[in-house]
């Protein structure tokens, strides 16, 4: 029946306080430090209601921004940023120009919708780039920016392979999704997942989610939706180039680029060694050349 037996203990409309381990009642997961948690965003279930965007803004007290129309689609949010930690992308699969579809299959909307979020990468490039230790890995295996440490150097911004982190010019610090760190500490499911009316956003222990997602892909394939695949789970697109896996991963039904995701993102810090060692080797060569030219002066007659 889907209702946790403990839920009956809290049947009143106005509970006295916070329900202990409330996440167990809302998503069947008890939140304990030391375990890995994440999001499984199943885009085949997304209806584009943007409840996740609103819940995120409300819980995290994020200011409104971009009050305008993009003219592209129902997506007037545009992208993830300092003040937007959930972003619902709307892709209309109807073609354009002469290729524009004239007829649609029954019960198909031809819209792909996907609630994008910080991926909380297993090897997070933003964290590895951060020179102050402001970005750290929490006891829930999520990646969070500590606002009281960040000095706004901005190096995490280009390091992120998904364009998630952004500096706010209001306060001069980097901001991104915290996977509701404060809620996790209080035993609450993250706001976006809790508010999602179709369970397109599922919160849970990451290994559970991987299993759930693989079963969902098989299920969809069985039903004829053979184009469903995972993005960001181990050994799938998105989990490439040393990123290992993404703690917030997705089920997609078209090329990742269609959703504004790279098919093979890379771990930026893997380029430090080749670059720096090559640079130092070049400097060693130049130093030898300089030494030859400098000592040539000894042969000059006085």
């Amino acid at each position: 029946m889907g209702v946790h037996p403990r839920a009956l203990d809290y049947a009143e409309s106005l509970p006295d306080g916070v329900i202990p381990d409330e996440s167990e009642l809302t998503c069947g997961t008890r939140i304990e430090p030391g375990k890995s948690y994440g999001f499984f965003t199943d885009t085949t279930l997304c209806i584009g209601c943007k409840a996740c965007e609103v819940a995120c803004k409300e819980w995290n007290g994020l200011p409104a921004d971009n009050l305008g129309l993009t003219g592209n689609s129902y997506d007037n949010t545009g992208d993830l940023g300092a003040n937007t930690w959930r972003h619902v992308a709307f892709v209309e699969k109807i073609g354009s120009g002469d290729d524009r579809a004239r007829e649609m299959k029954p019960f198909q909307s031809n819209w792909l919708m996907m609630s994008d979020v910080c991926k909380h990468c297993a090897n997070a490039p933003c964290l590895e780039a951060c020179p102050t230790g402001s970005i750290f890995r929490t006891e829930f295996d999520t990646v969070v920016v500590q606002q009281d440490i960040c000095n706004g150097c901005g190096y995490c911004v280009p390091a992120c392979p998904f364009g998630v982190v952004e500096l706010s010019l209001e306060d001069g610090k980097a901001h991104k999704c915290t996977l509701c760190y404060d809620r996790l500490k209080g035993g609450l499911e993250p706001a976006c997942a809790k508010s999602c009316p179709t369970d397109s956003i599922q919160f849970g222990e990451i290994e559970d989610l991987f299993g759930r997602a693989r079963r969902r892909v098989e299920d969809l394939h069985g039903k004829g939706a053979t184009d469903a695949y995972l993005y960001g789970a181990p050994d799938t697109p998105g989990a490439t180039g040393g990123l290992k896996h993404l703690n917030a991963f997705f089920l997609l039904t078209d090329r990742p680029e269609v959703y504004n995701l790279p098919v093979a993102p890379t771990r930026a810090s893997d380029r430090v060694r080749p670059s720096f060692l090559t640079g130092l080797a070049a400097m060693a060569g130049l130093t030898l050349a300089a030494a030859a030219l400098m000592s040539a002066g000894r042969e000059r007659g006085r």
Partner: protein
Amino acid sequence: MTGRPVTAETMPGLPVEQTAIPHPAVREWNGETYYDLASLKPSPFDWKIAAYVYVAGLAGSSQIIATLADRLGDGRDETIVRNGRALALAGAVIGAPLLILDLKTPGRFYNMLRIYRTRSPMSFGSYILTGFGVASGLTAAAHLIGERRADGSRSPMRRAADMTQVPAAFLGAGMSTYTAALLSATSTPLWASAPRAMAVQFGTSAMATAAAALSLGEQIAGDPENSRRLDGLAAVSAAGELVASAFAEKRHHEAGVGETLRKGPIGTSYRAGALALGLGVPLACHAINALSKRPSRGLSVVGSLALLAGGMVMRQAIFQAGNKSAERPDDYFRLTQREPEGAKPRRRVDRAIEGRRNGRDPGRLP
């Protein structure tokens, strides 16, 4: 790019379809983007960081040249030593504020030294700059207090300067080139596509500009012979930079990301300012001087000034073009069509490919 493509073979997590329907993630990318909106955020680095890269390289390489002149010279290189040490200190003194001013919360600059991280050039670079600044400051101060005596012997202070110059010179090599690693270790398409070539480009440019600045100093001090040697070093470095630039451009082209550095006003300033003026002119000037029996002072000065200007234009152009490439989703998606070099194929994948070659259907992979 020599990485492996993302296909069902390289991604065992992808279900292998029995049908002829191409898998969406395996189907070839036809240039689709999300309404052409940026997939990445450009770095917030502006002209100040580009100027810092220039100043850091010039200062670091100046310290190397000064140290070599002091160790290997015959006593007539004193102005090179003095000017090199002064330039090194000046670079650290000018560079640090440039970096701090670019922070969005500059009052917390000291947090840079809160942790140490080898995977972040922004982190270890802060230590290189701090160490270089301290060592160069000590060297320059001790040098100023204890100039070489008239009889050629060295005072204790001068000997102290000669000791601290060695760590300063080693850190100077880091100063000259770590900034390339800083840019390459991002997801910005232009910077990420040529990590090695750009490191050589920055390093050679650092040495070339340092030699050019010191050569100007020798012209002012009236020592054309020293100037000639430094011009030789500048020419060798500039030639190396030209080769590295060509390699970088080849890498950009292979990855399909070089357009922001080739076209538009940035492309013009890169080609005309960094390559033609910054490398072509000095190479020509120094070559003419090297071949002629009576080297011209004017050509030497023009060559040095062109190198100094070109080095700055090169840094600014690469910064602007990189930030612009981050805003072009097709640049990023072209770059990320393949997994990067060094990613090892997994064993079970090899088995699956092997099975397919033998005509057996490997079936659904685990």
